[in-house]
């Protein structure tokens, strides 16, 4: 999804008028971490500038992240990730939009399922993710983890490096939301 489409998503699904934004919350510094474990090499990368907006009235959530904002331990891992696997010039963002299923706004702490469409490397896939939702003083926190298969997103790993990259990637997320005032 390109920038214009994402802004359309934000300003249509999450209508920013004063009357409608009472239940909207924003996280500008969400964290997404991915792990690839193999016997040859463990690879971890973190993105600490993930954008997310939730609308608790509509029970909707949108997430967007820049692939080039993932930080790796080594420069070479960053280069391989962006240039060979994710092709960040062609697909600079990953996005998710979905619904909070069985979410109860009155509970301070609960486990909920998020169902929606995850788009990575230009490939959209329907996913269901369990998440812990906590509300403390009207600041929401969402945490959770899930597994994504590399082949589901048409990410091609060269044969010579296939033993270095896991076939399934563990993804962890942590978003701290504040009321969205605009």
């Amino acid at each position, binding site marked *: 999804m390109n920038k214009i489409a994402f802004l359309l998503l934000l300003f249509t699904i999450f209508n920013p008028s004063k009357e409608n934004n009472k239940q909207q919350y924003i996280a500008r510094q969400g964290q997404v971490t991915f792990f690839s474990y193999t016997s040859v090499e463990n690879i971890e990368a973190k993105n600490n500038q993930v*954008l997310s907006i939730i609308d608790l009235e509509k029970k909707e959530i949108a997430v967007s992240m*820049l692939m*080039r904002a993932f930080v790796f331990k080594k420069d070479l891992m960053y280069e391989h990730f962006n240039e060979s696997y994710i092709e960040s010039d062609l697909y600079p963002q990953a996005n998710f939009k979905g619904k909070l299923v069985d979410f109860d706004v009155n509970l301070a702490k609960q486990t909920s399922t998020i169902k929606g469409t995850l788009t990575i490397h230009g490939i959209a896939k329907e996913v269901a993710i369990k998440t812990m939702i906590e509300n403390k003083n009207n600041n929401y926190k969402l945490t959770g983890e899930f597994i994504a298969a590399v082949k589901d997103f048409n990410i091609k790993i060269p044969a010579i490096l296939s033993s270095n990259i896991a076939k399934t990637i563990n993804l962890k997320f942590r978003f701290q939301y504040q009321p969205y005032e605009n």
Partner: protein
Amino acid sequence: MKTFKKILLFVSLITLIIWSFWATLSVNKSSEKNLEKINSDYNLDSNDLVANFVNNTAKANGNYVGKIIEVTGYVKQISFLNNRKTVILYTKNQNYGVICDVSNNQLDKLKTLKKHQKITVKGTCKGFLMDVILLNCYIDLKTNE
């Protein structure tokens, strides 16, 4: 002739050692960068930077992503969320901002910063969501007002 072969062998060996050393350094090169002494590709204020992305994202991506940018603006927020050190700069439109993920060696400077203070930040531009994102940022306090 024997001497020539010895010299050739010696040169080949030295070349192999240097190449191995260079390859090891390249593979293990840390992603942490110190941009203090590296010249910036662009120098502009936070309002202009964000306006360029909002007005023409594709063009701004082409110009700025992957480049080192010096941005001057006013401190909106200092954050230690996710164990990161982050400065967010104001822009005219409150929906947008510049998120600067600051290098670890800038902690002392970060502690002295105050909200609304004017600063210049140099970092590597990663792109734009609702904020322009700069990583490995170096804080220049010379512009303090």
